[in-house]
């Protein structure tokens, strides 16, 4: 901008005695010219107020300020900034503005402001004091930025989280109710042993879905959270089972089969394996693997140690593994078990569809 392309009314006019209403400031000298040009071009709405005058009126604003608020220069100059507030403006935030003005400090507040036509916008207001060369307070500077889009995005994300949480809460409740029904039916039919075993599996399934639901809006779930949730009851002190593989995420459809397979392994370990003795430990690790065709699988390794010596596969307790085998092979995955002398080694493999 080599020549003066600003309309006359946009000329800033400044003098140390302050400005009359309706005038742009004229900021003297070359730095004043740069200031004017910068103020005219920036998309950030800017105003200056004069705290030495009664009620700290606006003495300068740029074109972006007019655009943002819908008021004209003549309607803005001479008024206190509070004319942008309305019934839904958060008074706590307004209080923070007052504090900043009183203490001559810098503050950033976000508040709902009103345009001339009554419509609202979220204003990220940055304000602070400006001192003259003597160090005495001259102006307050205020920059306004319309952050309504940011607010809308935040609200949407909050809403999604709320919904996920609500669904999660309801589903946990459904699992709890199913547990109650299974127990009550088992008692009524004198089949408590069977009903307990059904219930253990139902509850393991419920636990494996905990992280899935809380993060449902992300589309994938963190494997570690599901693994920990399923195995939590088998290690109440948290010192028997080691978890390795943080951060791996996978598809929610893997959860039922993996949750139940882990439940069966843990039940087996509690009855016959490493979790029957205090010295016994289990290490659970998980990772994604890709074969040479680029097909991915989630692989979970289960390694027991320190338990009673293993002679071979236990004869009883096979039902649970049959269920896990059936579920995993349905998804073309599998559960391999190797009864090593120092403890069971198992590998759960679940192919990924994406």
């Amino acid at each position, binding site marked *: 901008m080599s020549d003066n392309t600003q309309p006359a009314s946009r000329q800033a006019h400044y003098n140390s005695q302050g400005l009359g209403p309706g005038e742009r400031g004229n900021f003297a000298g070359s730095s004043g010219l740069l200031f004017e040009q910068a103020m005219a071009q920036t998309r950030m709405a800017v105003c200056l107020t004069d705290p030495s005058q009664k009620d700290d009126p606006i003495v300068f604003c740029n074109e972006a300020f007019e655009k943002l608020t819908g008021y004209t220069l003549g309607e803005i100059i001479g008024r206190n900034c509070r004319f942008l507030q309305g019934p839904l403006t958060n008074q706590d935030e307004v209080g923070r503005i007052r504090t900043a003005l009183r203490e001559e400090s810098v503050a950033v507040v976000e508040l709902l402001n009103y345009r001339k036509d009554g419509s609202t916008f979220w204003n990220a207001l940055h304000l602070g004091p400006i001192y003259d060369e003597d160090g005495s307070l001259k102006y307050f500077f205020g920059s306004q930025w319309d952050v309504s889009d940011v607010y809308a995005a935040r609200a949407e994300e909050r809403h999604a989280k709320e919904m996920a949480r609500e669904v999660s809460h309801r589903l*946990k409740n459904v699992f709890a109710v199913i*547990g*109650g029904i299974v*127990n009550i039916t088992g008692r009524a039919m004198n089949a408590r042993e069977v009903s307990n075993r059904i219930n253990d599996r139902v509850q393991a399934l419920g636990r494996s879905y905990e992280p899935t639901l809380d993060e449902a809006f992300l589309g994938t779930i963190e494997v570690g959270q599901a693994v920990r949730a399923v195995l939590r009851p088998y290690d109440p002190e948290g010192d028997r089972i080691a978890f390795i593989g943080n951060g791996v995420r996978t598809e929610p459809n893997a959860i039922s089969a993996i949750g139940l397979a882990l439940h069966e392994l843990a039940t087996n370990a509690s009855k016959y394996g490493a979790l029957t003795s205090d010295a016994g430990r289990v290490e659970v690790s998980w990772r994604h693997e890709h074969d040479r065709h680029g097909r991915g699988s989630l692989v979970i390794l289960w390694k027991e140690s320190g338990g009673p010596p293993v002679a071979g596969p236990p004869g009883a307790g096979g039902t649970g593994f049959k269920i896990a085998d059936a579920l995993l092979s349905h998804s073309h995955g599998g559960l391999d078990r190797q009864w090593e002398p120092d403890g069971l080694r198992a590998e759960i493999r679940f192919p990924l569809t994406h």
Partner: protein
Amino acid sequence: MKLILILEDEPFIAIDLKYACEDEGLGAVTAGNVRQAMTAMDEHRFFGAILDVNLGNGETCREVAEELRDRRIPFVLNTGDLNRSGEFLRAMRAPIIAKPNASADVVRTLLSHGAKVR
């Protein structure tokens, strides 16, 4: 017989907990809302209590929990939503058992908590 107060708006869970109490040789009185629980506390002397946190229609177990605390009756919180009532739950300093869970574990947790508190 030692009596346990069960505050739970879901009947299946309430009955299941009642049976689990009976397995431990305890009697149980079930209440589906705060008002019933407060009435039950006037009528019985309880040994302990199991409280569901969110009781539907925005009602929580808070009032009952405070009354139990004043009467020095140990209780556990049995809840499916640990996030929503976070602050109030933490302030209660009672054991929190996440739903879903095994009813026998809830009763056992109450008994061991009660033994520590007494």
